[in-house]
């Protein structure tokens, strides 16, 4: 097949994926409101179909450009949205068995893809020499994998904050925690169990969303999964910068923002283990991390100039 055919295939598959997610999102919101299991199944089916088309779109792009499709913002967004949806299917629907947050996650994917075609599209082209490095491939892929996880965590955190507020408004009693725990090796102000959900109302199945404790646990798990990969991404990025420009760290805007995002999420992991910061406050730190992630991802490339800027 010619390059043109592959490009056509890639953009066509992109549209299928986009509308698959859009449909899946609407179905998911319908399910959220009316709870018909068939609608949920339709939503999942549309999402899976979209995901398959999405994969095809990425592969087609790679073949058309004759390289790994990680060369510019359009391609990053393509992979990022793919991974967000994949992570959602695996972690939220699969492992977490939570059925009610799909609409929000798919909404995030739809927006990411819309921004990608509207503002970031460029034709497939070879890379300039500085970008032609294995470390860069490793760096970019791990940044995108972790971005998708951290973004999913961000969406879940927003839902957590919404739900937690509603539960607090209703004044539902905090559950009685069983069996206290001895803290034999804790520093001052330290509470064990960073991954334990903060107290939440038991059996509060009434609302539209899962219980806040469930959302909180899901958010924590996804972020804790994404954080080391982000760390790895920063390290490989530094190795690449070292080989390309002779310095592993130069505080260019992209580097600075990935550092900020890292620091804020490190703050989140801390906050969950700090007395008085568990629950809502920690979630707000994660939300700040989410915003910082979006700035790292979009704003730096589009508005702030640095050595990375030719990647747009």
């Amino acid at each position: 097949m010619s390059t043109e055919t592959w490009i056509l295939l890639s953009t066509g598959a992109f549209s299928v994926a986009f509308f698959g997610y859009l449909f899946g999102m609407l179905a998911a919101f319908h399910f959220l409101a009316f709870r018909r299991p068939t609608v949920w199944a339709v939503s999942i089916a549309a999402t899976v179909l979209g995901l398959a088309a999405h994969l095809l779109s990425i592969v087609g792009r790679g073949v058309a450009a004759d390289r790994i499709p990680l060369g510019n913002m359009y391609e990053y967004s393509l992979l990022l949205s793919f991974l967000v949806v994949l992570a959602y299917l695996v972690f939220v629907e699969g492992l977490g068995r939570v059925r009610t947050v799909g609409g929000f996650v798919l909404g995030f994917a739809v927006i990411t893809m819309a921004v990608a075609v509207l503002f970031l599209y460029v034709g497939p082209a070879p890379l300039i020499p500085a970008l032609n490095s294995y470390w860069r491939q490793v760096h970019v892929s791990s940044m995108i994998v972790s971005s998708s996880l951290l973004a999913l965590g961000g969406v879940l955190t927003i839902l957590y904050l919404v739900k937690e507020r509603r539960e607090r408004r209703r004044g539902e009693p905090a559950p009685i925690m069983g069996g206290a725990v001895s803290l034999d090796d804790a520093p001052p102000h330290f509470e064990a169990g960073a991954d334990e959900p903060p107290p939440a109302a038991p059996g509060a199945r009434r609302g539209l969303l899962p219980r806040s404790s469930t959302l909180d646990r899901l958010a924590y798990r996804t972020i804790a999964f994404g954080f080391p990969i982000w760390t790895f991404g920063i390290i490989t990025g530094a190795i690449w910068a070292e080989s390309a420009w002779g310095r592993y760290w130069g505080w260019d805007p992209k580097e600075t923002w990935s550092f900020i995002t890292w620091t804020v999420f490190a703050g989140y992991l801390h906050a969950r283990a700090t007395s008085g910061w568990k629950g809502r406050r920690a979630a707000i730190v994660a939300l700040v991390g989410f915003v910082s992630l979006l700035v790292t991802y979009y704003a730096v490339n589009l508005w702030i100039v640095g050595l990375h800027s030719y990647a747009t």
Partner: protein
Amino acid sequence: MSPTAPVPTLRRSVALVWRSLRSMRTALVLLLLLALAAVAGSLVPQVGVADARIAATFRDHPLRARIFDQLGLFDVYGSWWFTMIYTLLLVSLIACLVPRTRAFVRNLRARPVPARELDAMRHYAELAVGDPPEQALGRARSLLRRRLFRVSGPNGAPTVSADKGLGREGGSLLFHAAFLVLLVGVVLGRGTGFSGQAVIVEGQTWTEAHANYDGTVREGRFFGEDHSGVQVRVEDFRATYRPTGQPRDFVTRATLLDAEGGELERVDIRVNHPAEAEGVKFYQFGYGWAPVIRVEEDGEAIFDGPVVCQQETPPEDVSQLQVPWTCVVKLPSLDPQVGIRFELWPDRRGLLALLETGEAMPMLVEYAPVMTWEAFEGDLRAELVQSVGVLDTSAMRPLDTGVLGAGETVDLRPGLTVGFTDLRQYTVLSVSRDRGLWIVLAAAILILLGLLPALYTSRRKLWVTAEAAGAGTLLKVGGFALQRRSQFEEEFSRLVRDLRRVPEERVGS
């Protein structure tokens, strides 16, 4: 002050500060402050990253620029307050690490002692098994060992104590300690190292020494003036492009020589593939054109050599390859003095296209190169400190202008000729030395290695006691997890189930 009130002695205040530095809350606030400072650093242009934008701020908004400058906002990462935040964080980190490490070591040695009755624990089960207490406990012991629990209590003791997941605290300690090592590596490497740029014309040899960087070198705070003296002899430079004008590769072919001139290695330096000699690394950074110009006065050469030309940054819609190269030759020995400004078109068709269509053609290769020139005579004002690439014509008058092709010579004024004898390229190498690199890399790897168990394992403790009950035994199992409690619930019930199951061979015997 009443004599009974606690006197804030120095010791007590130090203890107070130390205690607050150890708190999680302080660490959290400092981490978020660090992020906030970096936000400032990304919004305000920084020295070394965006010098041109700083200069523009000083020109357009002098007051704002002065305030920013006073606050250190143009150099956030070198400012006293940034240094203070991360120093406090480091001190806080050490303050945390010391007691945590001590507690961890204690934990490593200690055996878990049940803090209360087993049946008061979060997870508790009683089960009746057929074998006698001794055997039942032995079975529990080996089951737990198989599940990688750390089992204590000598064989035959009435209680089995077990715990698991020391990797969580151990990993966390490793992570935090490695972070400390990372910063040490950064400060050490930056502090004792240097970085700068070398401009080398094809055929020339450049020596790694302070004076040869033309002021571009930045040396660390603890730099010991120990430049290497390594020499780089540039054989040639080659830039290749795709038909679209997109660069494909930049290669400097060079020979590295030691300080005494002994040949070390022949190397190809290209983007992403630096060369190294004696700890100094050379990276492909840029390139340009250097016409060889020969000026003769009455048949005698008064200037003969390559002149490094620079390019201006073009407006948005013009490719850098369409822009001509400019350079200057100054002849202070003449009377009156003469200065010549050249504009070089390495590909003649670039200039021709500009003249015909008003738009230059991208110049990818050397093709019948041509220079336009503009000569001035008068006073060069050499007593003022001036850049070699700038000609100050305020005290000069125009002498002549013209066009000069490669291999041609023109007369400037009687007895004075200028020749364009050859066209060469120069390469710009970024040169640096960082001795902390390996420390930083090792620390980064340790950070990752520590992070994984710290985030994904959990600390669990478990006790089993046995009481004779009739022919068999009543086993009591109690335990809890400090993290990931919902997961432990499953693990606990699986353990209890497996304890209940008497191994096949025992049943047979």
